[in-house]
């Protein structure tokens, strides 16, 4: 049966006056949207094949190509949007589950955009971060309730000798900590979902900046072992690539329970993507499907989680923090509390807008809660229980800018994970087709023809640039508030005000409305 043509999403517009038929676009499009006709020496385009990745537009040397949204419209209908109709048509034809990449794109309110920051005026000088010290260093890990020091050393009682902290000896043994020079980490993205070059870019950038990237559940490629000191290795339900060396290679271990884009859902790397290299890294035979079950089948309850946490701590001789990543769901606060009490050194919470390489659209768009509310709730809950210091909180899921970062921290996060933002830095234009493996930017693909498009030198540089720029902006904002160390902002909700939020939202976020003084 013939497939009913659906209107294309994009229109490729080629300015014939500018097109020099150099065929760069033809060579570069992995979806074969452009073709060259030697007879007429012209290049033509087929808009139906365009996914809107904008690679050709970016690379065209004469700027002859513009990718536009198809102006063809269905009859205006608030309920039955073009997207809805397209989806129904697709499903009517295929009987398949709609698949998508990247995070939720539904217009739920973005609370970040309804929160504003404070700045000093008169009563308190703002600080100039370019010239005065400004500290973003952050430690991720369990902190004790208090410090224990030995009593004064005998010399310190000498006349006129004032003892300082340095005249004591430290009795407290700190739990292992991750030292971050800026409170931003790269979120879990597995080798498999993204290319090795993308992984290398993340790893090198993490090293250069002094932060961490996360392996996701793809295992650790042999070329990435050298970045171990900046790696968080993930243990997920599929346990791919998880073995002793892997656990020892990283600086920290993260147990992945859930992911913001698909709470309650497992994962699936199709066998055709399991190449020789991926097979070695994930430790599964070439060509077999890599299935990540929805739950860990050794964790059906919180005490089971505790069992795994301590199994991992035992395996690594208590030398590195073990954290747990969960999706932000309705019950996130008590769950997080349970996780902290189960011994996790950090809890990563991935919000509704968290990204993915592939997820059923219906899950991505409808399950979970925004990270802003989740962080506020969890931080509150842990403080109420007096256990906030026992674990660090990492906020994830749709962190788009330095202002999102700083607001997340002021709401109570210790640090944030960025995933999509890192991908965008490397070139991604959010065409949401990661699952096709045809990523023209060489990121979400294993096709050797495409992966080489991401030169890790460039990837690293762009990621480093992004983190440097954000860090500087964070410093500027901190300075504006008269704060010169990030720990003075962490959980400091007094520096936040809500704009256009309901009383309930404000209450949940624990912030005052804009216009209200201290």
């Amino acid at each position, binding site marked *: 049966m013939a497939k009913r043509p659906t209107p294309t999403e994009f229109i490729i517009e080629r300015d014939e006056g500018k097109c*020099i038929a150099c065929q*760069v676009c033809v060579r570069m499009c992995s979806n074969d949207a452009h073709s060259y006709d030697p007879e007429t020496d012209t290049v033509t385009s087929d808009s139906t094949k365009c996914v809107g990745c904008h690679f050709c537009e970016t690379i065209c040397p004469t700027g002859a190509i513009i990718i536009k949204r198809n102006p063809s419209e269905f009859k205006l209908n608030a309920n039955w949007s073009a997207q809805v109709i397209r989806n129904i048509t697709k499903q009517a034809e295929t009987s398949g589950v709609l698949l998508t990449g990247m995070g939720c794109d539904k217009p739920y309110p973005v609370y970040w955009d309804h929160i504003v920051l404070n700045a000093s005026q008169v009563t308190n000088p703002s600080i100039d971060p370019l010239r005065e010290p400004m500290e973003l260093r952050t430690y991720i890990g369990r902190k004790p309730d208090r410090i224990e020091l030995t009593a004064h050393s005998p010399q310190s009682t000498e006349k006129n000798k004032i003892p300082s902290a340095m005249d004591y000896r430290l009795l407290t043994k700190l739990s292992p900590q991750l030292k971050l020079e800026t409170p931003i980490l790269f979120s879990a993205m597995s080798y498999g979902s993204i290319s090795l070059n993308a992984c290398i870019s993340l790893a090198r950038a993490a090293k250069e900046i002094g932060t961490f990237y996360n392996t996701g559940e793809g295992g650790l490629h042999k070329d990435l072992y050298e970045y171990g000191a900046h790696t968080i290795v993930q243990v997920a339900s599929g346990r791919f690539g998880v073995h002793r060396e892997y656990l020892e290679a990283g600086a920290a271990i993260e147990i992945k329970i859930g992911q913001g884009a698909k709470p309650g859902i497992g994962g699936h790397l199709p066998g055709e993507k399991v190449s020789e290299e991926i097979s070695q890294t994930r430790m599964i035979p070439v060509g077999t499907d890599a299935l990540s079950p929805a739950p860990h089948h050794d964790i059906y309850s919180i005490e089971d989680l505790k069992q795994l946490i301590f199994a991992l701590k035992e395996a690594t001789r208590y030398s590195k923090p073990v954290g747990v990543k969960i999706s932000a769901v309705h019950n996130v606060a008590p769950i997080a509390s349970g996780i902290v009490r189960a011994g996790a050194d950090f809890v990563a919470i991935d919000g509704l807008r968290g990204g993915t390489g592939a997820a059923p659209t219906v899950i991505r768009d409808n399950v979970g809660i925004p990270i802003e509310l989740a962080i506020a709730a969890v931080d509150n809950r842990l403080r109420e229980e007096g256990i906030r210091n026992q674990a660090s909180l990492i906020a994830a899921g749709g962190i788009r800018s330095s202002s999102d970062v700083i607001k997340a921290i002021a709401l109570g996060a210790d640090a944030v994970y960025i995933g999509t933002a890192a991908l965008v830095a490397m070139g991604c234009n959010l065409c949401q087709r990661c699952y096709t493996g045809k990523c023209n930017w060489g990121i979400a693909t294993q096709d050797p023809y495409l992966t080489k498009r991401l030169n890790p030198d460039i990837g690293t540089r762009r990621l480093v640039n992004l983190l440097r720029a954000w860090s500087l902006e964070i410093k500027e904002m901190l300075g504006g508030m008269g704060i010169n160390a990030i720990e003075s902002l962490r959980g400091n909700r007094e520096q936040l005000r809500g704009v256009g939020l309901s009383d309930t939202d404000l209450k949940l976020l624990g912030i005052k409305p804009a216009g209200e003084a201290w």
Partner: protein
Amino acid sequence: MVKRIYIREEYCMGCRLCEVHCLVQHSKTKNIIKAYKGEYPKPIPRIIVEEKGYVSFALQCRHCEDAPCLEACITGAMYRDKKTGAVLCDEDKCIGCWMCIMVCPFGVISRNIEGKKIASKCDLCVGEEVPVCVKNCPNEAIVCEEEK
């Protein structure tokens, strides 16, 4: 300081933008649209991209230290620029005997037979700070480094 162009084949996407920009640089007008659409004879690039499967790389004169083309040139047209170390062809002296083509192990000298026959090769974009292929390679697969 002598600069060398290095090719990193693992990052060559095979887009051939280097060829496009090389052609434009060595055109009369140096205007991309005119070079392609308005110049006759059509200028030719001095860089070539080799491609096989997913492997590709751009190639142009390596300006070898021990350049065989310098030895093979019977007219003395091929010379080394003292300042940049580049191997250049004095097109005025070149008579198109193709001895250089015979000895170049990279196969990066080509015959320009439009008009006077001359050997056409990379000149490191004389006058440009960085050769245009290096400057315009979108993936930094062609890099220009000072000789180690």
